[in-house]
């Protein structure tokens, strides 16, 4: 009976804590609203440890409050000399053993989950034809932008990571210039993109949770990498497995068919794109320059939710057009220290900018 | 402050005895020196002989450790009384040193 009561209390503590915490933050960035298997395992570990810690704090608080209320000098009398106690073995053994037990309760699942999340056996699996069954994405972190290459599909994209839901997605991450760290808070913990080695881990994107956030999660750089570290954001677009297949096909096809400008302005913009040398850093073909480009690949630029990872295209006050122009004119103040040159009126007339913007907005692969 | 300690706990009558002890100890030192040379030779020969490294590495490391023990305990007198604190701190240092080297050969890759 008593035991049952205790269990019940602990359980309610669990749920209460989980409930309070889940109220925190926005679902597309918050680690407290896990949107995938990996994040959920980590979240459970967090809740377990938080509960243990709350228990510790409560115990300490009880002893503490009694001690500082009962034994005040003002209550006891000014001249009392307390008994000079040396210690107590029983007590000392107690507060050694109980914390050891608590720590073990946390240590066992910690070790378990740590190994579980490092299990990448699935990545090696192949079908009859020797093709890898799991989806693998090569992430290359650059000073303030992200490149995502799909080696088995032979395509590349940047800034907007596109992934299928409800399956494990494997990531090989590396830092191109300095060290960064790859983090999608709602979907799972981070992993460093070291400069000298490839790190591998996996994430799993939950379709239900993804719907909740309109299929868009926020990703961040979590390792100080320079002035614009704060702005090295990326976005994650999730879609169902089938849709993802279609997306891949569409991407692969862009490379084959020559993209034709739809109107004159776009055609002019395309010219500007070539003349100004944009093409030197930014490929518009998803099969080009994988792993070697100096700037983000812009094949899907017109479909991106954000410009440069930070200017929101869905913002009702600012159109995508405004964002693009703002970026081209002021990239240096928007993302201090980034590697893209600034184009002021002398370099690029307003008309050319209009045309360029029109062209960039037309770079779409997968929208209806 | 220097004067708080009295100079010689040992009365000076022990002079002869001390001299003899020192001589003896010196002979020990020469022996350990010979041992060190000998171990060095073995180490070099083991390498020149071209055995496989799984045999040579342990031999080399054991020989080095033995040499160091000789240095510390004989040449540096750690075998004498009053080196308890010294040993405590030296071995703590050795422990930290060991862990450092261990991690660098295991979890710093490539």
């Amino acid at each position, binding site marked *: 009976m008593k035991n049952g009561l205790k269990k019940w209390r602990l359980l309610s503590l669990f749920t209460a804590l989980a409930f309070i915490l889940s109220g925190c933050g926005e679902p597309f960035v918050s680690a407290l609203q896990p949107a995938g298997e990996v994040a959920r395992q*980590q979240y459970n570990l*967090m809740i377990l440890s938080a509960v243990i810690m709350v228990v510790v704090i409560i115990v300490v608080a009880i002893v503490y409050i009694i001690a500082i209320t009962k034994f005040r000098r003002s209550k006891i009398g000014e001249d009392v000399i307390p008994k000079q106690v040396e210690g107590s073995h029983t007590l000392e053994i107690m*507060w050694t053993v109980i914390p050891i037990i608590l720590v073990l309760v946390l240590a066992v699942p910690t070790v378990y989950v740590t190994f579980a999340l490092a299990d990448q056996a699935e990545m090696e699996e192949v079908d009859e034809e020797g093709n890898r069954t799991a989806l693998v994405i090569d992430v290359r972190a650059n000073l303030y932008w992200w490149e995502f290459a799909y080696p088995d599909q032979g395509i590349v994209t940047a800034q907007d990571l596109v992934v299928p839901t409800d399956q494990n997605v494997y990531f090989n991450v590396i830092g191109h210039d300095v060290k960064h760290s790859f983090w999608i808070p709602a979907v799972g913990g981070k992993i460093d993109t070291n400069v000298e080695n490839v790190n591998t881990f996996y994430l799993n994107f939950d379709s239900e949770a993804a719907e909740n956030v309109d299929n868009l999660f926020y990703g961040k750089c*979590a390792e100080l990498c320079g002035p614009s570290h704060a702005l090295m954001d990326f976005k994650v677009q999730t879609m169902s497995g089938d849709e993802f297949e279609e997306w891949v096909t569409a991407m692969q096809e862009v490379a084959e068919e020559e993209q034709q400008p739809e109107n004159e302005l776009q055609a002019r913009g395309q010219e500007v794109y070539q003349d100004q040398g944009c093409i030197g850093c930014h490929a518009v073909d998803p099969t080009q320059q994988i792993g070697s480009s100096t700037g983000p690949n812009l094949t899907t630029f017109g479909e991106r939710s954000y410009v440069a990872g930070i200017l929101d295209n869905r913002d009702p006050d600012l159109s995508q057009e405004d964002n693009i122009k703002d970026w081209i004119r002021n990239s240096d103040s928007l993302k*201090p220290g980034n590697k893209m040159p600034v184009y002021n009126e002398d370099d690029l007339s307003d008309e050319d900018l209009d045309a360029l913007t029109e062209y960039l907005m037309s770079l779409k692969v997968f929208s209806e | 402050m220097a004067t708080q300690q009295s100079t010689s706990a040992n009365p000076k009558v022990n002079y002869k005895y001390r001299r003899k002890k020192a001589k003896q100890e010196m002979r020990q030192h020469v022996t350990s020196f010979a041992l060190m040379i000998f171990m060095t030779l073995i180490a070099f020969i083991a390498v020149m002989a071209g055995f496989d490294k799984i045999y040579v590495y342990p031999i080399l490391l054991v020989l080095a450790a033995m040499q160091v023990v000789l240095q510390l305990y004989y040449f540096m007198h750690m075998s004498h009384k009053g080196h308890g604190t010294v040993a405590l701190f030296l071995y703590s240092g050795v422990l930290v040193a060991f862990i450092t080297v261990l991690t660098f050969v295991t979890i710093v890759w490539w």
Partner: protein
Amino acid sequence: MSTVAQKKGFLAVLWDYLTTVDHKKIAILYLTSGGFFFLVGGIEAMIIRIQLAVPDNNFVSAGLYNELLTMHGTTMIFLAAMPLLFGFMNAIVPLQIGARDVAFPFLNSLGFWLFFFGGVFLNLSWFLGGAPDAGWTSYASLSIASEGHGIDFYVLGLQISGAGTLISGINFLVTIINMRAPGMTYMRMPLFTWSTFVASALILFAFPPLTVGLFLMMFDRMFGANFFDASMGGNTIIWEHLFWIFGHPEVYILILPAFGIFSEIFATFSRKRLFGYAAMVFATVLIGFLGFMVWAHHMFTVGLGPTANAIFAVATMAIAVPTGVKIFNWMLTMWGGSISFTTPMLYAVAFIPSFTAGGVTGVMLASAAADYQYHDTYFVVAHFHYVIIGGVVLGLLAGTHFYWPKMFGTMLNEFLGKITFWLFLIGFHATFFIQHFLGLMGMPRRIWKFLPGQGLDMPNLISTVGAFFMAVAVIVLLVNIVITQVKNVRVGNDPWGDGRTLEWAIPSPPPFYNFKQLPLVRGLDPYWIEKMEGNTKMTPAEPLSDIHMPNNSFIPFVMSLGLFIAAFGAMYQVSWRASEGESFVWALPVLIIGMLITIGAMAVRSLKDDHGYHIHKEDLLDDEEGGRE
């Protein structure tokens, strides 16, 4: 040398402090310069908080923000917290063990001046082209890529002050091992002495890896080496390991002495012997030992593999056990005691829940798989400010109030002290509690600005408001200090009335030779024992006789100055970094001149014998008051 108090001119006082080898004066030097750097680091923190008060703020620029956060962390850890602790160690430890000075008075002074010049050098970066900007951890890929001389200032400044710290650490170890008064066995040493002992041992073994790491970075940045250049076969993870092999013990170097201060305060103001003294000593040693086994918990996301992560996770959690022993022993010290809530005691009492909260989040961080989420977020920022401010800074503030009378002979105003306390405590929790949630809600640390619409606005504002409370608290403390020193009401040897250890048995401030006759120690809390037997003084362990004292020396100052000068040369001789297009012909000569000054000073020191001097018995007899200078 007369011991009669006399008025001295400003220059004479200055010269006295520049050349002093007296541990009590060196303590004051540490306290003032550490205090100064605390204000500097605090102002940097305030700018950080102002920048982060609202989303998309542009109060400071991106580059400047990174410099601020780097200098805030570096200054607070190396130039504020540690030196302030050294201040109290210097002031109190020799008195607590009944010694006339530390083992190496000359090196004590050298340690201080090295720290001081290293700190000044580091902070000069603000005026000479930009401060370091790669975080206090200065991870290699970024710090190698960082342009300008910021990181060079970091490397050289820390190298110089680190040498000072190592010297001081060895000095305290030898002092505690060799200089204890008759009867002061190890198991009778006060806990502050014990924790100083363990912290010094940690310094001895933790600073060499930092030294090596800094050398490697210096070689890479200034002399063309390739330790951290992946394209040349280098490996940046080496820096991370070396830094954290130093870095984790470093946090215990900070917290253990604070634990020591609190142990003294709990016993004193509960009028009760420290509960479980032996267990406390053992726990201190154990924490120090385990402190070397856990550093990779800062590197869980680096990709060391699950085995390494699991081992280091479990090892880290183990530290909760000895720390818990300490927490409970402190509470049981109060239990059954007679608690008087003086300002130092208020800090001590507030420390228990604050530090426990910070400690348990540490254990949460230790859970490797969960740390993939916490790492490099504000959750970590919250954790370490809880342990550092809730532990170390509260300890320093408590120590300031507690030992002020012993160091300066005057009592800080209790009323103002309590105002400081409450403002600081409230501000501290307001600032940092909410940061736990910021981290979990997806706010990375070290970000210059955060963008709106991510649910981060309100908590950040609250955090900033809290920081202002802390700032006001610090200002009240400064006012308190000024008022106290101006009023200058002198106090006796045991101003708190409940002193237990040897330092309270001698005048405040103590005479420059500390003890006329070394005391005989008859047990733990020797002064308390004497008081309980109705004695007002310690029983002497030796007849009154001449006291041998070391001479003052200007050499430590010169030696440190030489390194300071050489550092400029070393830094500016990198003209081969052609990209910056700078070339300073004077750099190499300056490097050489600086080194010559240092080496010359060392040679003078070793060629010129310095046998010190004696205070004669007769003068000691005359010196009834205990003479303050």
